[in-house]
């Protein structure tokens, strides 16, 4: 178990990134990343466009393999886990993709029912009931039999969130949750994220560059820099904005004003 660096954990470590280097071929995107997401945190990964924050998320959920370093869930290495263990760990996490990524050939209820059918022994009626409940939690009661293409982008995102929550995950990942949403929908999604953390006790990791969102929800963060290709700041975003000694971080968090 590596020593958590920059830890600001409320409790035990939920996710630990140790010495992680990400690269596409020979091109190193970010190197030597070290941080810990505490249980119950709303942890924001921020940085300018193209700094590799979405790629970092893909490393955390196993869609990319790091060229160096490891990702730990609790104190278990995800990077070195056997396929069976990986499946176990993946069952404990939920992911909301940027575009929602709902399976377009299935209705909303079927989207949520699929993971439930795969990983639980519930009967079809029970699954249907749980799916209805999850949709109700994100304000989509009554939309069970709609296909993803029949609903708006904001609704697709909420349905994606309902699917991410299908198996009551301990950790929820959000990739640019506010992207493509109007300010009010974006704000409602932020409120929903905080509500989920408070009521379910889930740990939340968000990749975003939307300042309003960052200040509204984050309890901890890391700042990735595209030039130096590593983390140049970590901590509570409002404190970073007011007190960071790094000009680049202050500029980013104040929309270019210093």
């Amino acid at each position, binding site marked *: 178990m590596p020593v958590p660096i920059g830890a600001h954990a409320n409790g035990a470590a939920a996710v630990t990134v140790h010495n992680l280097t990400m690269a596409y071929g020979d091109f190193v995107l970010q190197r030597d990343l070290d941080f810990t997401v505490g249980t119950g945190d709303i942890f924001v990964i921020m940085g300018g466009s193209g700094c590799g924050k979405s790629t970092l998320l893909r490393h955390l959920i196993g869609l990319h393999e790091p060229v160096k370093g490891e990702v730990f869930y609790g104190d278990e290495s995800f990077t070195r886990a056997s396929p069976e263990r990986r499946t176990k760990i993946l069952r404990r996490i939920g992911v909301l993709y940027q575009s929602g*990524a709902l399976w377009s050939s299935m209705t909303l209820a079927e989207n949520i029912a699929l993971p439930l059918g795969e990983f639980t022994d519930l009967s079809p009626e029970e699954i249907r009931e749980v799916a209805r409940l999850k949709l109700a939690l994100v304000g989509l009661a009554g939309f069970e039999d709609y296909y993803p293409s029949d609903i708006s982008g904001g609704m697709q995102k909420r349905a994606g969130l309902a699917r991410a929550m299908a198996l009551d995950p301990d950790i929820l990942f959000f990739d640019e949750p506010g992207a493509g949403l109007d300010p009010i929908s974006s704000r409602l999604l932020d409120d929903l994220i905080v509500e989920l953390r408070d009521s379910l006790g889930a740990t939340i990791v968000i990749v975003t560059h939307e300042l309003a969102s960052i200040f509204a929800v984050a309890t901890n963060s890391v700042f990735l820099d595209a030039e130096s290709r590593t983390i140049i700041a970590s901590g509570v975003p409002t404190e970073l904005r007011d007190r960071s000694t790094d000009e680049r971080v202050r500029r980013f968090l104040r929309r270019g004003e210093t």
Partner: protein
Amino acid sequence: MPTATSAQPELTVQRADDGRLTVRLAGPWSLGAGLPPLADVERELAGPAPSAIGFETEDLTTWDSSVLAFLAGTSKLARERGVPVDTAGLPEGLRRLLALAEAVPEKSDARATKAEDDFVEMVGVRALEAQRLFESGLDFVGKLVLSFGRLLRGRARFRGSDLALLIQQSGFEALPIVTLVTFLLGLILAFVGAIQLQTFGATIYVADLVGVAMVRDMGALITGIIMAGRSGAAFAAQLGSMKVTQEIDALETMAISAMDFLVLPRVIALILMMPLLTLYGDAMGILGGGFVGVTVLGLSPVEYLLQTGDAVSVTHVVGGVVKGTVYGALIATAGCLRGLQSGKSSSAVGDAATSAVVTSIVAIIMACGVFALVFYALGI
């Protein structure tokens, strides 16, 4: 100073006695009329260096990006020659746009560099690419075999309704086009044969020709090619766009195997449907041949069918169906492989669909050749 505003775009370059170059733009300049030519400025700058470049634009009635492009070009030439540019004579808007265009210096490595046309290097790059594609193809086939293993042990999971829908789409809905094409193929074969056989007065053997050709090879081959264009392309496009929309990522992070969930039902659907479509295609081909035999060659329908029955053996039929089944597996595998290899843009999905059809057809023809050799060796 010119008195009248001209209706034609004008450009004059004048050198004053103090060595100052004045560029005068007049009339309406627009992209529709073309860019003001840089040649005059270039010629003047090639001579003794002017002390400065200035502009006169009092008579410039309208301007757009065409003038801006000219100014940017002039400014670049002047900079190279170390000649100061005086923008005071330009309209306010143009001056600000020019400043904006030059505010951020061109990123030296951003422009795509044209690769050296080194033949050896190109061969090497292509060979490595081919090796990578071949390896990922083998990897895919290996994973597919493992997936079938899980299916046999009852541990592969996909939705029955997906399989049913795929069977309907790739089987039942293909019937009209298979009917048309195989009927016409039988008809064409009959005509080709009839011309030769008529010279011997042996037109009845058209039935043998059409029957054996359709059942042994052509039925499976042509149905395979139709299915490559229909289902192979569809599979690649479906999986490719699921990749673009991150639907495949979503499956993987839910620990649901895309191989089991998406590829397996598609391969199974074609393996189930291709033999049936092949048999149906065989029958339609024979019907097409019979149509020519009866209407053009004056044979009786019964005579034609009896002759076909004599010529075609069960071995022929079984051989054709086996071929069709193998083609079905090849088409589905190629379609899904290309779909999962697709890049993450809409044009990449198009490329994946094209590549799926090409790969399927090449694979079918190669398999057909292998079958021909094997069947010959076995004496079938």
